[in-house]
């Protein structure tokens, strides 16, 4: 039996478990990944199975542990670093962007850094400005760094397994709001190949491109729009960089309308990049401007009301989508 109902958290844990069983070189390193089992419980019990030499509790020294992972990867281990919050990426950016991402290139292909940086981001817990961000654009802006963000239980498993098969550094960003989400895990079948987006819903009127938790908001929005007779295609990027744009461009050429949704602050976001690519390649097919929907361009406030109000939801996506179809007028326009 390869298929089962499980949670996003469990699926990611299963991927670690299986990867570690298959390959002794895979090690985990991070704050509280061992005895505590991970701040969000993803690595629970792994230290009991694989021991403290492979599941390594580190001091609170993010720059040091990512740097150590780089060295371990250069010399034959396959480290998975857990960075407790993506917000701490500032502390490790040199090791990630200047060291891990550039080593292969700078050293003329001699030295590779096959490592995975697992972390989590996003809003929803009133965790305030330094524990709620969506910083994937920082990583996407770094050539040499691979980036993926699972939205589903099945992707939690497969994207992590695939990430561990890469010979390059990969950032794997989970969403803190998805850990308890249930879904189907089929360890024998991925939703799509590595580097490919997944089409989560098909409709002929509008293409909504998104990733991570916003996939679920987009799907809800698509259902709401369907009640008004508008059918949306929802595409989940999964692998943000590098990414095969072909399925996205094909869909937009078919629907003639595209909306790109991100939870991150919109300016300079992944959505901006994807929208630009769509605009460049689909200009003659577009009925409407490519719209970007994202987080407001503000730090994340702690007040639950302000926090929720600062990020997109199904309501905003559906309203905007319907407006693009001119089947409805915007309540707030």
């Amino acid at each position, binding site marked *: 039996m390869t298929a089962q109902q499980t949670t996003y958290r469990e699926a990611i844990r299963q991927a670690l478990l299986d990867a570690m069983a298959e390959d002794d070189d895979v090690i985990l390193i991070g*704050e509280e990944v061992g005895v505590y089992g991970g701040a969000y419980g993803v690595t629970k019990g792994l230290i009991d199975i694989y021991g403290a030499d492979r599941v390594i509790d580190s001091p*609170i020294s*993010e720059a040091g542990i990512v740097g150590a992972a780089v060295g371990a990867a250069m010399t034959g281990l396959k480290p998975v670093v857990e960075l407790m919050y993506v*917000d701490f990426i500032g502390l490790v950016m040199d090791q990630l962007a200047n060291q891990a991402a550039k080593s292969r290139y700078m050293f003329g292909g001699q030295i590779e850094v096959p490592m995975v940086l697992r972390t989590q981001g996003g809003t929803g817990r*009133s965790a305030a*400005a330094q524990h709620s961000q969506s910083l994937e654009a920082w990583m996407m802006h770094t050539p040499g760094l691979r980036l993926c963000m699972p939205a589903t239980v099945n992707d939690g498993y497969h994207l992590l397994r695939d990430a561990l098969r890469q010979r390059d550094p990969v950032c794997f960003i989970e969403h803190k709001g998805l850990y308890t989400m249930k879904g189907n895990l089929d360890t024998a079948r991925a939703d799509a190949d590595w580097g490919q987006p997944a089409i989560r819903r098909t409709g002929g009127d509008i293409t909504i491109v998104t990733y991570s938790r916003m996939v679920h908001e987009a799907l809800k929005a698509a259902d709401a729009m369907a009640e008004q007779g508008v059918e949306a295609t929802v595409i989940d990027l999964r692998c943000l960089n590098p990414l095969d744009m072909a399925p996205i461009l094909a869909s937009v050429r078919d629907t003639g309308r595209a909306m790109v949704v991100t939870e991150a602050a919109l300016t300079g976001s992944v959505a901006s990049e994807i929208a630009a690519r769509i605009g460049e390649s689909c200009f003659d097919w577009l009925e409407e401007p490519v719209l970007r929907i994202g987080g407001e361009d503000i730090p994340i406030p702690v*007040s639950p009301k*302000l926090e929720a109000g*600062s990020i997109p939801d199904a309501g905003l996506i559906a309203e905007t989508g319907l*407006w693009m179809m001119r089947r409805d007028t915007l309540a707030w326009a």
Partner: protein
Amino acid sequence: MNAQKNTAPLDRYRTMRRIRSFEERVGELFLRGESAGSMLHLSIGEEAVVGVTDAMGDGDTFTTHHRGHGVFLGRGADPARMMAEIGGKADGYCRGKGGSMHIASHALGHLGANAIVGGGIPHVVGAGLTYRNKGTGHVSVAFFGDGAMQQGILYEAMNMAALWRLPVIFCCLNNQYGMGTRIDRAVGKLAFGERAEAFGLQAAHADGTDVEEVHDTAQSLIADARGGKPGFLEISSFRFYGHARMDKSPYRTPEEEEEGRKRDPVLKARERLIESGLGSDADMERIDTKADDEMDAALESAVTASPPPLDTMFEDVFHPDSPAPAPQRDRLRAILTETP
């Protein structure tokens, strides 16, 4: 009444007791579903930090880590405004933007609580530069946990403070734990003071159950710091409860917790005051009741306070003289309604 009687220890007890009472009510705020989130780090067991805050003077500044409620109360914070901030309310110190982990008050010298371990430490070096260059005589104190002892930035900061002879104190509140990791599982060698000395700082250690010892030690270090001799102070205590409000500390034994909670700085100060005749049982009762009443009121006022209006989210991103970021609905409306 003895006019010569030194009332400072009694005042310090009062502040410690207020901190204890405040933190208990932060826990209550969470249980009532009224806190903004659950990232609430209580400083119960670490109240002797009042020995440091009491040794600081008007105009001195400080930064704290995520477990900084006690430090701020020690520097004169209004508990109602703190509690409102922890509830994410408009009346909070940071207008409901920051919350428990990011309380600040420029007026009271609080340059900010930080949720990045070690994040606030170098700011005191900069404050030290300000005070040195302007000759103000002030000192700036960084409060942080034992976990931050493993962040590289601390050592960059210590070196600069020593090199430039800045009026700066690095104050490590060693509560034995960083989340689920006891300190001996996080460091190769426990002698924190030696690290500071290696950089040329004056280092001292104080027992965190003894607020008077903390105070005497801090006073002397701070006096030296004002004279351009920066210092490092480690205060050892025990984190009474979980890392954050939800954490039940499964990684340590009930016995360890029971032993640890015997290291109670509030209780010890109370007993000592009574023993030394500085306060009677009745005096202490009065102080305790008053503290509890004050914090009950702070809790209730936070619960009934209003959340910030939605559009305040765009304020404070930039200086108020320049335009605030535009709400995305404005942008979408402009795109969708524009006609050539």
